[in-house]
């Protein structure tokens, strides 16, 4: 059957319609919020630290980071166009006003609970039915933590980082900034100076964490940036699977989000870190949306340690993130599985770094980019094999799926191999959803929208399969919803 050129327009129209759907989670909850005046200086850093009753060493850490940040400029090397951000126009701290400190769900502000319910995150149900411990973060302060007691029996620590600073100061002090230094980059320095809250996880030696640990982040207060800090430590022979999921309300102003995730994996320990990210991406004309400028890195310090990153990224106007593994331990394993969807005027520059230092260390990278509309979607990756790292292996699979003729898909793979025994492979493909595939589905009774959803989920399956079960279902629905539109 022939496929004449004039049909491509009709087909792109279908895909454009399908991929131009509205953000479904756009709303702002009206709750009392305690907001520091806009702007950033040493006094603001001191004020944040004071509000949180922090010890002196942490204030010092923040001040050093702040002073270093002053010497840095916003990085411009990524294939994204970040408007100049006025860092003095941002408020660096917002906390829901506590009435008395809720002891149970009944005491949590019903408006907050309603927000989570509209997002499909019923805390109660999650708590009871799914066996997950949920550390729900609205803006900057933890609202509710569940399952703490059960975890405590095993010696697992899962709490907000503010609580950890109070209750486990030695652990936090030992590991904070040990993988992502405040000197690492512009946004890491900023986060280190002003981080508000986040999660802390410690899995003791030999403990297999019996439930998925989960945190839901949500940007809420108007004009407030969010600076989470997550620190996960897996001690020898331990295992933990950590889930992070995000949505944000629709709003006009751009929102800055500069988080840090640090993970330390000791001997024979394993950490799985899964993310589903669906922050507001801006409107169809490219106005508004979240700037997601994140530093995520794990250190596989122990021998035979393993760190696996899985991410499904559908949101944010701008995404700048490279969850990475430093494979320091001999026989350590690093994995990165990613699906990044961009549409309208979204820009994503994302990928990973696999730094092989330990002998026989192995890494796998599977990146699936999906671009629609006028978006720009880039994979940027570094595979580095150090001179003394014998017998290392890397396999990289880097695929791009184009849904429009106006989008861009780019790959920037870098390999630095300083040891001749390394085996490094890189595979890449670029494809489009063809009108033949859509028509084949149509002929079997499957309409355009469902056909695109089916094909895209098929394309991304290799990554989706790496997500924990309950998350995979959610992520599949998210992919479909993201690409859903006004067809018919």
């Amino acid at each position, binding site marked *: *059957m*022939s*496929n*004449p*050129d*004039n*049909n491509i327009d*009709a*087909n792109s129209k279908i895909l454009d319609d399908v991929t131009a759907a509205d953000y479904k989670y756009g709303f702002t909850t009206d709750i009392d919020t305690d907001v520091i005046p806009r702007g950033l200086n040493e006094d603001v850093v001191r004020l944040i630290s004071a509000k949180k009753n922090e010890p002196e060493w942490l204030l010092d850490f923040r001040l050093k980071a702040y002073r270093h940040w002053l010497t840095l400029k916003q990085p411009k090397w990524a294939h994204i166009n970040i408007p100049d951000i006025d860092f003095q126009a941002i408020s660096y701290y917002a906390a829901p006003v506590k009435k008395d400190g809720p002891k149970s769900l009944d005491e949590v502000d019903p408006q907050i609970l309603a927000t989570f319910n509209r997002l499909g995150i019923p805390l109660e149900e999650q708590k009871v039915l799914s066996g997950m411990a949920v550390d729900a973060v609205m803006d900057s302060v933890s609202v509710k933590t569940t399952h703490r007691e059960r975890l405590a029996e095993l010696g697992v620590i899962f709490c907000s980082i503010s609580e950890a600073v109070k209750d486990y100061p030695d652990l936090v002090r030992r590991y904070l900034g040990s993988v992502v230094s405040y000197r690492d980059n512009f946004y890491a320095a900023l986060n280190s100076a002003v981080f508000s809250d986040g999660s802390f996880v410690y899995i003791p030696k030999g403990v297999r964490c019996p439930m998925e640990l989960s945190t839901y982040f949500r940007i809420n207060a108007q004009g407030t940036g969010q600076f989470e800090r997550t620190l996960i430590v897996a001690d020898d022979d331990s295992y933990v699977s950590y889930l992070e999921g995000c949505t944000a309300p629709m709003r006009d102003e751009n929102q800055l989000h500069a988080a840090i995730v640090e993970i330390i994996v000791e001997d024979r320990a394993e950490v799985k870190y899964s993310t589903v990210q669906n922050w507001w991406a801006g409107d169809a004309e490219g106005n508004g949306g979240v700037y997601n400028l994140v530093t995520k890195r794990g250190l596989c310090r122990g021998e035979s340690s393993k760190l696996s990153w899985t991410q499904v990224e559908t949101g944010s106007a701008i995404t700048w993130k490279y969850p990475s593994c430093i494979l320091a331990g001999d026989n350590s394993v690093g994995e990165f599985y990613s699906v990044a969807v961009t549409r309208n005027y979204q820009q994503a520059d994302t990928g990973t770094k696999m730094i092989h230092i330990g002998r026989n260390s192995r890494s796998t990278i599977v990146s699936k980019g999906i671009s629609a509309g006028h978006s720009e979607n880039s994979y940027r990756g570094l595979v580095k094999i150090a001179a003394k790292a014998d017998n290392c292996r890397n396999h990289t699979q880097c695929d791009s799926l184009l849904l429009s003729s106006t989008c861009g898909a780019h790959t920037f793979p870098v390999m630095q191999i300083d040891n001749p025994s390394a085996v490094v492979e890189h595979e890449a493909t670029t494809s489009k959803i*063809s*009108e*033949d*595939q859509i*028509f*084949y*589905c*149509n*002929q*079997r*009774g*499957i*309409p355009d929208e*469902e056909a695109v959803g*089916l*094909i895209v*989920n*098929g*394309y*991304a*399956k*290799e990554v989706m399969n790496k997500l924990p079960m309950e998350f995979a279902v959610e992520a599949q629905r998210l992919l479909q919803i993201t690409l859903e539109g006004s067809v*018919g």
Partner: protein
Amino acid sequence: MDKEILLDVKGLRASVAGKEILKGIDLTIRKGEVHAIMGPNGSGKSTLSAVLTGNPAFTVDAGSATFNGKNLLEMAPENRAHEGLFLSFQYPVEIPGVSMTNFMRAALNEKRKYLGQEPISASDFLKLMRQKRAVVDLDNKLASRSVNEGFSGGEKKRNEIFQMAMLEPSLAILDETDSGLDIDALRIVAEGVNKLKTDDNATIVITHYQRLLDYIRPDYVHILYKGRIVETGGPQLALVLEEKGYDEIKRKYDNNAAE
């Protein structure tokens, strides 16, 4: 007594990229009938199947097509499928990553939704898959494989007939289902089609060769040439064609056209 009319095509003209391919097709198909459409390359056979099933690459310029009493040409392709029209593709399309199970469940549930029925239960669905696989002797592993990906030519065609069995169309168009098949695969595919035959459904078999018609016996044979049905007859017409080849048709109708 004549059976009920299933498909009624009148004066159908269609073009692709501004070039007219179908130049006035008249075709009436009743329940229980098998029609063969034969003709040389480029005569418009595949275009006819594409236009009837609503492929957006083709433009209908004139004429009408009524299916089950409804205006076929106004329906979206998926609704034509739900109404009972099925096309066994000449070149089945590969859809990487989408398992046959998911694909067929999506297709079946869309149809059930159209008919106002509840989605099929997982156990009923798997039972149905097992049952229908047997029609074309298709391997168990098929269910977990991606749609047509890495299938051999024969497997692809068997997979088409398997899908036909799943969806139980009232009118199936087999577009050169025999092309690329060895004699054993041809027999399996043809037997599958025959098993699905009832008094209430109908089949259009599009082919170059008489060979397939030894297995699937047509009630009518039409010869399509340069966008028109130039001759219609019984099964013996195919035999005549086999004997004399398309050259005679070409000579005869090229001369007519020249006059």
